[in-house]
């Protein structure tokens, strides 16, 4: 992989991250928010792996990425369960309806 700079990977990760953030902030659909989270996590993974390739992080970066993937899966499972529950309770998935925590 000569010729591809670390910066480029980081920039891809940045785009992923920002897209994830935008998803999280703009989607009213709970699932959309989850999708944003996945994007953000994936951005992190990409950075980890890139660092493991270009910096002394080595394998550790990849291991971290693995953990993140696993945790993201778990998170997705739980989040979906929550989303279902939410849907059961509110008969909608619009997160703006979930304002019980309003002060």
């Amino acid at each position, binding site marked *: 992989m000569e010729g591809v700079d670390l910066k480029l990977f980081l920039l891809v990760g*940045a*785009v992923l991250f920002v897209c994830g953030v935008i998803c999280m902030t703009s989607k009213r659909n709970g699932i959309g928010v989850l999708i944003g989270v996945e*994007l953000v996590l994936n951005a992190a993974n990409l950075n980890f792996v890139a660092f493991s390739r270009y910096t002394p992080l080595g*394998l*550790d970066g990849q291991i971290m990425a693995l953990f993140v993937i696993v945790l993201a899966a778990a998170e997705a499972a739980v989040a979906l369960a929550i989303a279902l529950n939410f849907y059961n309770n509110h008969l909608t998935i619009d997160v703006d309806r979930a304002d019980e925590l309003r002060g």
Partner: protein
Amino acid sequence: MNGGQVLFGIFALLTCGGAVAVALTQNVVRMAFWLIVSLGSASGLFFLLNADFVGATQLLIYVGGTVVLLIFGVMLTTSGPLLKIPSSPGELIQSAVVGVLFISMFFFTVWSVDWEHVANTARVHDSTTDTVALQNDTTGRPIGMAFLGVRPDRDLGAAEGQPLSTGYFLPFEIVSMHLLVVLIGAAYLARAKRQITTAESRSEVV
């Protein structure tokens, strides 16, 4: 421009494009689709980075597991009118502003760091074996070893008298347990509740 660069370009574009599409589309199902595209391309990038095991895992778990899960979620929760829950333009603008700010922050950061220096200084005391393993696209075994608590990739070429590196046995076990718990929890949460009964009882009381 070699093949690696071309591949990187393709995958990078797909990844970024998918992500942007996810962000822009309002339809959940489409979002899920574009997510698959984005994540799949990301695994390609992983391969490009010689992280074969991670890339495979990405494809398997993420694209194959997580996204399917999401789609299940979409299908379970999304009856007709909820397929699209449009955001207000103000929110969109707000999100866009945040996004722009973030992206500019990242760009600024990425460009302001001297990555060569980081890589070079690293290389001075870098263990050769580590690099070798990465170069050879055979990360499955070292990663497995690391999960079992040994780091031959580091310790074999290390200087005499240096303490042995630690592996990820304990985190691995914890994550296993965590997964188990999470799955049980998710199953518990997701099971159907008779919340109507409570509503009835409530009305009866009233």
